[in-house]
C-alpha cells in the first residue's frame, strides 16, 4: 500500500482526457519522429476496491489539473515471504 499524491479518476476515459489536456498544454508531440508522445501517463489501481485510475503529481501538472489530493494505492505485499 502506498499513499499517492496525485489526481484520481473513476473511469479510464477521464484519465485519458486529463492526459490529453496535459499533452495539449505542452504541445506534445513536437515532431512526427519524436519518441515522446505524452507529457504524463496515468496508472491503474488494479488492486483497489473499487478500482480507479490516477496520475502521480508533478508540479508541472498544476496549471492543467489543479490541486492534487492524496489517496491510497494497493501494491503487492513486500518483503517476500522466503529469504535465505
Amino acid at each position: 500500500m502506498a499513499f499517492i499524491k496525485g489526481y484520481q479518476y473513476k473511469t479510464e476515459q477521464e484519465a485519458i482526457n486529463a492526459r490529453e489536456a496535459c499533452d495539449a498544454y505542452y504541445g506534445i508531440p513536437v515532431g512526427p519522429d519524436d519518441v515522446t508522445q505524452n507529457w504524463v501517463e496515468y496508472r491503474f489501481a488494479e488492486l483497489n476496491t473499487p478500482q480507479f485510475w490516477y496520475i502521480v503529481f508533478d508540479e508541472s501538472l498544476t496549471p492543467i489539473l489543479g490541486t492534487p489530493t492524496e489517496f491510497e494505492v494497493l501494491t503487492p505485499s513486500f518483503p517476500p515471504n522466503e529469504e535465505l
Partner: protein
Amino acid sequence: MPRIGIGLGLGLFQGGGGAAPYVGFLDSYPNAAAAYSLRKLRAAYTGNAIRVRRTDLTEQNIGFNALGGLDTTALMSFVGTGVLDNGFITTWYDQSGNGLNATQTTALNQPQIVIAGSMYTDINGFPSIRTAINAIWMNTSVNLNNAALSTFKVIRTGGNLSNSGVMGATDNVNDYAFFNSFADNNYYYGNGTGAESSISAGLTLNSNFIASTLNRSSTDRQVVTNAVSRGTSNVNKQTNFTMRINAQYRGLTGFVNEIIAYGSGDSLSTCQAKQNLINTYYGIY
C-alpha cells in the same frame, strides 16, 4: 548529493594503444540478448547511443566520440549549459544487434542525463543516467526467462538502498522484484507475489558497482558484485518476463551506465571475467 560534472566522455581501446582496432565488450563476449550503454560496445555497431529530449521538447540522437565514449560534446551542444537546460533519455539504443531499443514515450517518466546544464556522472566521471523510484523507467521488448539469464549492470547507488530495482518486468503490479537489489541491500528473485529469495548484494551508499545476477536454472542462482560472489539461491523459480530498465515500482534511485543481458546463465568464473573486462573501462574496483 549527486555528483554532477562534465564527465570523461572517453572510450578505451581494450586491445591497447596505437593503431589497434577498436574492440568493444561485445566483441569479446558476443550474443547478448540486449545491450545498453553510454559507451560503444561493439566495433561493428554504427548506430547511436541514446536519443535525448531537451527542455523545449525537441529530440536528437547522440552517438559516440572517436574513442568509443559518449559524444558529450554533441550532447551538451544540443541540450545546452544553462541553468534551465535539462536532457532526458527517450531511447537507449540496443547495441546487441537485435534492435531491441529501450524507450520511454512519457516525458515525466524519462531518465535524465543533463540537469541545469551539467551532465550526470558516476563516481569516476563517466556519463551516467539518473533514475528514481516509482517514476523513471524504460520499456523494452526483450523477452527473457529467469531460469537462463546473466545480467551485467554498471550502476552508481544513491543515498538510499531500500529500493534499487535496476531491472524490472512489464507487469505494472509485479514488476519490481526481478534480479534487483533493494530492500536492505539485497538482491531479490521472483515476481513479488510468489516464493522468492534474497541475497545480500554487498552494496554501499553512493558508490559504483558492477552487479550481476546469474540464473543457470530454475534452482541455481547466484549474485556477483565487483567480481565477488555474494551468495546463491536454490529456490525454484522460473518466469518468463519482458525486461524493463529500472523497475517501475521500487526502481533504483541512483545512476546507470550500462546494462547487458544474456539469455543463458554464466558460470562464476565467466561472470568474473566479464566483470573484470567491464572494470578495465570503468575502474570501479
